[in-house]
């Protein structure tokens, strides 16, 4: 019927031959060849991740700020547990029988064969006690891990903290982290995460079908070692930092000290401080909630996140910008009848009747009238339309690193604020406004926002007579001590060096001339140049501000101190700055003990009774101190920001 009938045998033959080929190959790999047998006893390979030690952080003298400490996690493999004395067990690790049952059930539900965490982070003492009797509790074992430890409990806001990764972070880093891994959440821990975390290793071990360990695979031939994270050397001086934190005890505010020649930050005090060790260990969750709820917001990184109108210290910037623009010279004088009159009815008062006053004296005496006229010249009398002249002035001020983030190596730095010309045009409904409409900018009040870091940076510029390096907290990375390139670039403030001398002379007199607002803070044989300021605070007592650098020739330190709700700059901020300067330059304090005691013991938290020492000269721009429980506006910004 079909002429190709015999071809069926060819096809059947093909089927048979194919089956034989497969069988031959299978016989070869299954019976003859031993290559594919890992070992005779049903072993299987499992990869264990080895976690590297996180990089440590040192201070500028290579003293430890953060290191790793071993902790002991109690692990359980439920299937291996044999009957034991639960009362004794619970007593040893200090839990109740009820908690024990709950934890045991949870572990057993997860897997009877796999290890799971029974109790986190036993203390060294508990571990020692448990270890002695561990043989009585088969199925339990202790796993050593390392956690962050801060030997001096210092610089919490600068160092930041680590925490378990959340889903967002897992997604963001595409596969690098898995649930339960730790990651830097704020501060240096966050901004240098990719350097600190190091490289993970892999250990190949053999396990049986029940996932029990049977030894290493090929004697570790395919294992890779974990590489520890890079060591970071910070610019911080630990002794100076600790001293600053001590001085700021029971006060709200910031102390930022910069080495002008490098931009390295010597001290970074954000007060109130907290103990960074609180963010480690079994109580981390509770501590974290407590810190978040603290009305004085310790998690808020004040040096880079709190913005203040700078007050009189802004006169330094205006004096320099006005000279550069040709609005005034060192010899320019104005007449101060006790205030500055502008427009038809406007009046900005001055604390004194200064009479005829020149530039140096205007800094020393902090004359508002002088800066009213100076500002008017810069805005109204340039030949440009005032709103255009304002933009030019604003650009000149921004060259001081004001109004935009400086690029410090910390997350969530804030820009600060100098309003644009458009802002005023919008506010006044037309661009026909002039200096009288925002005259408070001449004396650093009103719509200005400057962070303590930016204030300190302005002082570094003055100390350097015209330039700055971006302030930074990490001066060297790893064993090779690499520094980030952006921190080696010199930035110009756009002011010629010759314009600094009269201003610096005025600043020197503030501290060193009898009657200067900072005279109380003078140090013998160290010429400090400084400027006091008082920041009007609509929510309560004014903030006390002092900025300075020292010594006058070849400056080593530029500093900004802000103490919130403390009243005059000369009362609290100037002495704190002065002590910090002496501590850094001399490493000892020559002032009498009562001088430092007074500061350390002062409690200036809102809601405390004020004791003003008599005999301290008032600063120029003041308003009545009003006791209040309110939190200053600048501190109400949620500290949650650095959590994101």
């Amino acid at each position, binding site marked *: 019927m079909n002429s190709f009938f015999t071809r069926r045998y060819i096809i059947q033959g093909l089927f048979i031959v194919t089956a034989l080929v497969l069988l031959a190959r299978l016989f070869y790999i299954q019976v003859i060849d031993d290559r594919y047998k890992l070992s005779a006893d049903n072993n299987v390979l499992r990869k264990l991740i080895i976690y590297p030690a996180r990089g440590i952080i040192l201070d500028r003298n290579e003293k430890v700020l953060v290191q790793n400490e071993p902790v002991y996690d109690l692990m359980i493999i439920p299937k291996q547990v044999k009957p034991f004395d639960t009362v004794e067990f619970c007593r040893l690790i200090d839990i109740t029988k009820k908690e024990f049952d709950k934890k045991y059930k949870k572990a057993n539900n997860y897997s009877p*064969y796999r290890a799971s965490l029974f109790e986190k982070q036993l203390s060294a003492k508990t571990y020692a006690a448990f270890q002695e009797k561990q043989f009585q509790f088969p199925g339990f074992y202790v796993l050593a891990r390392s956690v962050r430890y801060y030997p001096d409990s210092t610089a919490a806001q600068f160092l930041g903290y680590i925490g378990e990764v959340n889903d967002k972070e897992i997604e963001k880093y595409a596969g690098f982290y898995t649930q339960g891994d730790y990651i830097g959440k704020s501060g240096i821990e966050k901004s240098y995460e990719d350097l600190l975390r190091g490289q993970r290793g892999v250990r190949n071990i053999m396990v049986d079908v*029940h996932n029990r360990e049977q030894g290493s695979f090929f004697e570790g031939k395919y294992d890779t070692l974990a590489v520890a994270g890079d060591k970071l050397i910070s610019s911080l001086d630990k002794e100076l930092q600790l001293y600053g934190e001590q001085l700021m005890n029971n006060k709200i505010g910031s102390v930022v000290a910069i080495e002008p020649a490098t931009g390295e930050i010597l001290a970074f005090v954000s007060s109130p401080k907290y103990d960074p060790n609180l963010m480690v260990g079994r109580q981390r969750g509770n501590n974290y909630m407590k810190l978040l709820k603290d009305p004085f917001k310790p998690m808020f990184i004040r040096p880079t996140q709190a913005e203040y109108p700078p007050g009189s210290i802004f006169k330094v910037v205006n004096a320099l910008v006005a000279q550069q623009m040709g609005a005034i010279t060192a010899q320019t004088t104005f007449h101060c009848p006790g205030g500055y009159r502008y427009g038809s009815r406007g009046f900005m008062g001055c604390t004194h009747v200064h009479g005829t006053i020149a530039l140096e004296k205007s800094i020393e005496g902090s004359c508002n009238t002088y800066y009213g006229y100076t500002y008017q010249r810069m805005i109204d009398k340039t030949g440009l339309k005032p709103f255009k002249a304002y933009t030019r002035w604003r650009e000149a001020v921004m060259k001081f690193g004001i109004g935009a983030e400086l690029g410090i190596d910390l997350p969530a730095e804030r820009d600060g604020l100098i309003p644009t010309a458009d802002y005023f045009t919008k506010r006044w409904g037309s661009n026909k406004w002039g200096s009288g409409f925002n005259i408070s900018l001449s004396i650093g009040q009103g719509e200005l926002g400057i962070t303590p870091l930016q204030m300190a940076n302005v002082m570094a510029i003055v100390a350097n007579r015209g330039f700055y390096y971006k302030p930074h907290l990490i001066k060297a990375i790893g064993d090779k001590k690499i520094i980030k390139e952006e921190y080696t670039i010199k930035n110009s403030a756009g002011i010629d060096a010759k314009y600094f001398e009269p201003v610096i002379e005025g600043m020197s007199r503030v501290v060193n001339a009898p009657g200067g607002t900072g005279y109380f803070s003078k140090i013998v044989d160290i010429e400090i140049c400084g400027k006091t300021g008082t920041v009007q605070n609509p929510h309560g007592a004014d903030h006390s501000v002092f900025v300075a650098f020292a010594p006058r020739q070849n400056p080593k330190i530029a500093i900004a101190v802000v103490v919130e709700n403390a009243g005059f700059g000369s009362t609290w901020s100037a002495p704190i700055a002065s002590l910090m300067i002496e501590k850094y330059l001399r490493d000892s304090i020559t002032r009498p003990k009562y001088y430092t005691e007074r500061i350390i013991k002062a409690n200036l938290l809102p809601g405390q009774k004020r004791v003003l020492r008599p005999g301290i000269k008032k600063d120029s721009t003041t308003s009545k101190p009003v006791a209040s429980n309110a939190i200053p506006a600048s501190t109400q910004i949620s500290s949650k920001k650095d959590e994101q």
Partner: protein
Amino acid sequence: MNNNHNRSFFFNVDSFTILLFLLLMAIGWFNIYAAVFTDETVSIFDMNTNFGKQLIFIIVAIITGTAILLMDAKFFSTFSPIFYAITILLLIVVLVIGRNVGGNQAWIPIGSFRLQPSEFAKWSSCLLLAKYLSSGNFKLSDLKTQVVCAAILGLPMFLIMLQPDTGSAMVFGSLILVLYREGLSPYYLISGVLMIILFITTLLFGKLMVSLALIALTGLLIYHYQKNRKLLTTFIAGFALSIIFMFSVDFVYNHVLKSHQKGRIDILLGISTDLRGAGYNVNQSKIAIGSGGLLGKGYLQGTQTKFNFVPEQSTDFIFCTVGEEWGFAGSFTVILIYLVLLLRIVVLAERQRSSFNRIYGYSVACILFCHFFINIAMTIGLMPVIGIPLPFLSYGGSSLISFTILLFILLKLDANRMGINS
């Protein structure tokens, strides 16, 4: 002619084939359980797991098979163009709305299950091919007949290539054996085999070496047969075609194949040994099967196929579990069952009086053979990694039900063979 079929629906159904069918499904199910098994596995009937779902698929497959046996045998022949049209439509639809799984746009989601049209294209194409070749006095030696056959098979093949699912598309190529049985010149098969050899040698030894070898071979043949004019032209034409083919291999390999496909071929030919990348699957699969030894590690005692060492262990790599837990004895048994099934289907095909039935029978044998060979050869490193399931064993509803339909249509045709005039 035969009145007996009224006595029972299942009278005349080849029970031996049904036995093999049930046996393979049972083996598959136990091995899927083993592939997923860990100590924590709660119940073998848990419907959230692969083996739980496979149990449902098996029940559905048995019901489907029974339903086919209850149908009228003429139904499949009569409606074959419609089946074909529907599957072609589905293949187009899947390209538009399909879900992408593992790089292939092959699935249409229906509720919590997914439909894979390429599986159904297999038997509908076979039906149409059988219908076409049996519906007139076509000769496969005619070019026109060859072109129509190529078109029937080529259309679904092309659409499946677009997904792109190379493995499933290749299965259609195996139907050339059916055409061979029906009279296609053996030169097609021979040149096919030669092309494969040329392909591999070109990649292994490079164009220059292969060219030299071809020149030498042609010279030798010409010298030996110099008296025979006709053969000489054939040799020279063959030589020219080989050279052209060789260069097109080079082109296809370097410019058409995707890097993962190249990688799989390289691994197979031993050109590269990347044990972490493309070679991972094959290497792990070989370790799993190789570690089984003669008698295996025992049921549920396999370690390699657990802990996710072998990927896709319950679908394309199910044979690893067989090899690891049952050893060479188990592999031998499974291969023997397949061989017996294939030979039995050829016997069924040959005993048909209608050429429609016979051609369909051979198509079933070829498709099952192709899956069986490529899948197992892949797990033991004889073929590159091509993702096609092992019939009746691999996890997956679409493939199981589609293979069942494929086989049971043949069983129905066979049960009814006396009632049809040819």
